[in-house]
């Protein structure tokens, strides 16, 4: 009788190994998505007219099933982690771009006017005023993108066991061990919640300037 955390050897990984792999495959795309979204969102703020088409493109990308992406990407990257991560990164844009745009736009106009009047150039204004003030909105977007990415990684099992914890779902069928499927689902759920909690904590640390619930004047 195998234990709950003992995995079939053909998965090629221990349980902790799969957890690490899963986190890498889920979080790297969100990070890449964030790095792409920041300049894209800034362009959308600067040139208002490009925001609707950008949002349209992001939405269309989100609507494309990952399987369709895999078919194309396998030709270039093979059955690899990269092939799994590229669609995930693209999916994150649909959440992150609007989150950052809203965050940057929510900076009070008088704060921006004051910054301009005090002699902040555009770059300084972006990095010292707009971006820090957009942090709550950006983290709100990251929470959605991260949790969805953690759950979506599993689909990578379809292209030769690249789904990290998702691979256990397939193994559960093959070996008739439903406990493996239960393990995968529970672990993915817990990872999602932990990642979310970590982001909430990060926001708390980054924004001591936000009014706190229950804190009086």
């Amino acid at each position, binding site marked *: 009788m195998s234990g709950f955390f003992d995995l079939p050897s053909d998965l090629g990984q221990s349980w902790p190994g799969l957890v690490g792999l899963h986190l890498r495959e889920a979080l790297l795309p969100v990070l890449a998505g964030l790095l792409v979204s920041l300049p894209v969102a800034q362009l959308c703020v600067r040139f208002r007219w490009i925001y609707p088409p950008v949002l349209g493109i992001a939405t269309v990308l989100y609507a494309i099933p990952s399987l369709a992406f895999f078919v194309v990407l396998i030709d270039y990257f093979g059955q690899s982690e990269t092939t799994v991560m590229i669609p995930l990164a693209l999916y994150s844009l649909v959440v992150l771009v609007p989150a950052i745009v809203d965050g940057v736009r929510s900076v*009070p106009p*008088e*704060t*921006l*006017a*004051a*910054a*301009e*009047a*005090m*002699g*902040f*150039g555009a770059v300084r204004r972006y990095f010292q*005023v707009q971006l*820090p*003030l957009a942090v709550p909105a950006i983290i709100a977007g990251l929470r959605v993108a991260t949790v969805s990415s953690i759950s979506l990684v599993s689909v990578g099992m379809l292209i030769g066991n690249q789904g990290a914890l998702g691979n256990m779902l397939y193994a559960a069928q093959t070996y008739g061990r439903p406990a493996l499927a239960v393990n995968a689902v529970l672990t993915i759920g817990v990872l999602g919640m932990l990642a979310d909690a970590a982001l909430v904590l990060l926001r708390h640390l980054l*924004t*001591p*300037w*936000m*009014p706190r619930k229950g804190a009086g*004047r």
Partner: protein
Amino acid sequence: MIRIDAVTKRYPDGTVAVDRLSLEIPDRAITVLVGPSGCGKTTTLRMINRMVEPTEGSILLDGRDIRQQPVNTLRRSMGYVIQNAGLFPHRTILDNIATVPRLLGRSRRQARDRAAELMERVGLDTALAGRYPYQLSGGQQQRVGVARALAADPPVLLMDEPFSAVDPVVRKQLQDELLRIQEELGKTIVFVTHDIDEAIKLGTRVAVLRTGGRLAQYAPPAELLSAPADSFVEDFLGADRGIRRLSFFPSAGLELQTAPLVPADADAGTLAARATAAPYLLVTDADGRPLGWSEPGRLTAGAVDRDELLDFGRPFVPGTDSLRAALDGAVLSPTGWAVAVDGEGRAIGVVSQQAIGEAIRAAHGRVAERTEEAAGR
């Protein structure tokens, strides 16, 4: 001196915000731009630090075109205070104030020392230094805004409706504080407001702008009140301008009468002697503070019933208060006499409405003489 020379601001859609405006803004004085919304006052202010570029005309600062220096250098040499303060929500009060010194390359330590000094200057408790803006009241935030504008000790201060968003009590405090700070620092202040009373209270000179960005009148406040250039300015000044103008006439010259003052414990002899001095007597307490008016016949020695006394209105301080305060005191008092007190609130005399009226006529006469002299020159 800031010289605005035939400046026009026309937007691409054809709207003219400012129309061939020329103004000379003197150094070390408060110049107020006032007018209804759409009169271009904020646009004019923003052209001084180039947040708005004029379509035509030029602006000279100490004889030099403001376009001759890099825009951010120009802006760092001018403090800017905005409605709702516009503080950085993510920076502490101290770091908000230290912003411009930091931009100018001062060390963090120097900038913060300076910021702490300014907190005291604008009347903020330095215990607030580590707080964030959301933890402060609107009035406190506005003080921080003023401190931030002053932090790099700029010669020029631009203020865009800085006190419009706070309640009237706090607004009055902030106005008084600004006048006090100005007394100490002597900045060249350009102050935009839509509130004519604020303009008259703060301005050394007031520029009244009309819709469409044209100058209606540019004059010291007393002159604005006594001789509005046209019906637009007169309407904008609103009612009571004769009464409001009295704020600019000192009450020091009023002849005070002391005979009607009687202490509450006066003996029968004193009361009898004073009975014919005036139609009413002002009863004072042991410290000399006014208690109220009474008709001489109603007073009995040693037994003054305080509840029987008539209200004495609002006393004025000769020399500090204006003729307006004196007249107000006389009007508020049922006897028609105003009570003059010293700084400690002790009655030093009384003055009748008639005497105040004569003082007003005399003051008008002096102004007329000065105007004629000026015209003759």
